[in-house]
């Protein structure tokens, strides 16, 4: 989970730099997005495995819906952004990265709260 947070913050900063410079996202940005997405998919699998194994009282449906949701944001955002390669398109990528951060924090909260 920590890896996702670090990577998504890096992505948000990288996209913000593009926004300020009024540049459109190129291959490096999309490679970065792909890496984050890969980690999110690994998280989805590990999350479900850990959910099945844990003794914590984690609300399963909620937890899994967050795991799936956070993995869907970047692909949708990327395609929506690519349809218009303008500053607004880049802003969509920033919004997507921000959404991943917000969902990830919440996901973390769901897991931690259940242990309390």
């Amino acid at each position: 989970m920590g890896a996702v947070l670090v990577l998504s913050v890096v992505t948000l900063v990288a996209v913000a730099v593009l926004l300020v410079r009024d540049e459109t996202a190129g291959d490096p940005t999309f490679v970065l997005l792909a890496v984050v997405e890969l980690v999110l998919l690994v998280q989805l699998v590990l999350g479900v495995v850990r959910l099945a194994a844990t003794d914590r009282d984690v609300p399963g449906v909620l937890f899994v819906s967050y795991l799936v949701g956070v993995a869907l944001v970047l692909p949708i955002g990327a395609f929506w952004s690519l349809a218009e390669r303008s500053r607004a398109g880049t802003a969509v990528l920033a919004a997507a990265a921000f959404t991943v951060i917000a969902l990830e924090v919440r996901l973390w909260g769901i897991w931690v709260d259940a242990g309390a």
Partner: protein
Amino acid sequence: MRDVSLSSGPGRLLVFAYGVFAVAATGRSVLQLATDAGRAPVAYSLSLLAAVIYLVATTCLLLGGRRGWLVAVVACTLELVGVLGVGALSYVATDLFPDKTVWSHFGQGYGYLPLVLPFAGLAWLRATRPEVAPG
């Protein structure tokens, strides 16, 4: 006004934001109503209403056209009334809201974005107003 596009330029970002909130609010309200509807019926019903409004707004922004524009204005206005009304109510009538909704405390749980979105939406719709009067 077939060429009125509400989903390009700043509208593209807006559609994404509304889409995220549509999914988030729908997921939340469905889960709340399915698991524990009796706990806070008012709050959960309002969550569902918010979800529907976000869905309508997203769809209309995507479709565009004059009718889409009109419905989007109605949806954004309802959204503004909703977030202000529920936001105020959640401070005054706390017993109605034992659990949070998207709109309670003016969207505090969502970084106040639910409060910002309708203003952004209405501003964008004002900028893209169809020139020919409807008729």
